[in-house]
């Protein structure tokens, strides 16, 4: 289904003629607490992500998954190491990225079509042209007929679809997803996961998917990164998911290969979750 040169594994093995889409080179993030203590969130992260790779980050609560995403997006700057996008060190906001947040992305004072076309309008594209393109995306995410609705007239799942269309219309090289589906109910969620895969397979975007749900991570990704428990979290495991695509998210969970992977990664993740639990008990 996907082009061979987009195969992340091949790229990494040949060293990659082109630089990786995202590279974290010894990235460390520290905060100075009001008490003057230095709190290390992330320590010495090394990671290379190929173009078109779907990569999930899992880890116990508070391990710095979202901080990692914030660093890639350029919302925050690392205190050590560099974030490189296509070989270039990232300065300021990441212009190649779009982000679907956990809470709403949609602007409540804009209709669906205005929300979706916003990225194009901000780039100075005429309203008529932006609307035409937006209609295509609205149809692609299955919201045809809702162009003139305001976000609060839509359900949570529909708002996520708007958010997805809003991000993808600008054809980002990198799609960031910060626990994007975690606020949805189970059924809507698996629907949205399938939809995401279908749409993503037509694009060449790399995806950074933050989640606390290991099953979701495995079902969607090419690669699952397990982070250690915070503070000063780092990468504990890096797993390739060789399940065939296209995938059906709700069925793939019963695949024996899936179960094997799940067990393997969970063994890694469980220890970290236990550490995280103990820490939260001790701090109480």
């Amino acid at each position, binding site marked *: 289904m996907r082009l061979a040169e987009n195969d992340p594994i091949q790229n990494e093995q040949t060293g990659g003629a082109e630089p990786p889409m995202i590279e974290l080179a010894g990235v460390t993030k520290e905060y100075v607490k009001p008490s003057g203590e230095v709190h290390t969130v992330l320590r010495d992260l090394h990671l290379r992500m190929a173009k078109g790779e779907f990569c999930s980050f899992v880890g116990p609560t508070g391990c710095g998954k979202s901080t990692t995403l914030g660093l890639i997006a350029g919302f925050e700057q690392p205190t050590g190491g560099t974030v490189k996008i296509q070989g270039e060190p990232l300065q300021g*906001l990441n*212009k190649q990225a779009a982000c679907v*947040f956990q809470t709403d992305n949609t602007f409540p004072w*804009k209709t669906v079509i205005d929300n979706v076309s*916003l990225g194009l309008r*901000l780039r100075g594209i005429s309203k008529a042209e932006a609307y035409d393109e937006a209609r295509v995306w609205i149809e692609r995410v299955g919201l045809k007929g809702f162009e003139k609705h305001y976000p609060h007239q839509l359900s949570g799942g529909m708002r996520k679809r708007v958010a997805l269309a*809003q991000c993808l219309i*600008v054809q980002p090289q990198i799609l960031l997803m910060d626990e994007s589906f975690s606020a949805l109910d189970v059924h809507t969620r698996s629907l949205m996961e399938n939809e995401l895969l279908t749409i993503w397979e037509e694009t060449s975007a790399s995806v950074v998917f933050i989640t606390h749900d290991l099953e979701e991570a495995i079902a969607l990704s090419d690669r699952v990164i397990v982070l250690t428990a915070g503070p000063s979290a780092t990468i504990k495991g890096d797993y390739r998911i060789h399940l065939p695509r296209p995938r059906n998210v709700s069925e793939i969970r019963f695949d024996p290969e899936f179960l094997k992977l799940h067990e393997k990664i969970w063994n890694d993740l469980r220890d970290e979750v236990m550490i995280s639990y103990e820490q939260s008990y001790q701090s109480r």
Partner: protein
Amino acid sequence: MSNLISPGSTASVEEVSRRSEMRAKAVKRRFRNLALQAAVFVLVVGSWQLLADWKIIDPFFFSSPKAILLQIADWFQNGTSQGPLYIHFLVTFEETIISFVLGVILGVIAGYALGMSEVLSVIFGPYIQMLNALPRVVLAPIFILWLGLDMSSKVALGVTLTFFVVFFNAFQGVREVDRNLVNNALLLGANKKQLAFHVIIPSALTWILSSLHSSFGFALVGAVVGEFIGATKGLGFLISQAQGAFDTTGVFAAMVLLSVTALIADWAVGCLEKRFIAWRHVKQE
């Protein structure tokens, strides 16, 4: 097939009757509320009239609803002792509108600037708090000394009153903008100006518009208090003249006119609000 349709059609008949029942109930509720509102009015005004008629309260000090109405009618027909009524009305209205508009514009600009800039808010924050703590009425004599007895001194007073209400709301509105929405717009390629117009101002507008109701009231207070202290025209001036002549009925009549003005203004602001935050008023279907 036929037995499939019939339960459907009975259900729709049921639905129609239920809907009309609901509508009838809503109408009934509306009438009841209106009737209760009218009853309160009749009770208060009626007992005032009766108490004045029976001389339980002194009509010289308390006047009576009938006398007030007659006074207003007389003003409309023959003008006041200080010239035609509409002139006073227009002057007060003009002062109010000008100080409202100026106060809102200045308040929004200052609120936006200080809300966006940490440095500006640190520098000017304490001074604004200090000025706001000052009872604005004490400024009226100063403004009259500086700007004279005509309109500008009243406008100045009205602006100092409206500015702060709008300013604090605009400031808070800008501060409360959802971080995610800002980040989202920035990632989608917004520059500073676009961020302001697409995200920050629409988001702060809810706050600003809710302050307009009270700030219009303050603009009216500014105009009337200013006229009260020193003026040659306006409803406030009319009140102070009536007070000087121990004409309680005149004072009350001017008060009634003022409250009618305030009500009309409140309604106009309400319309403005509906226009600008239409997205909030679209009913869930």
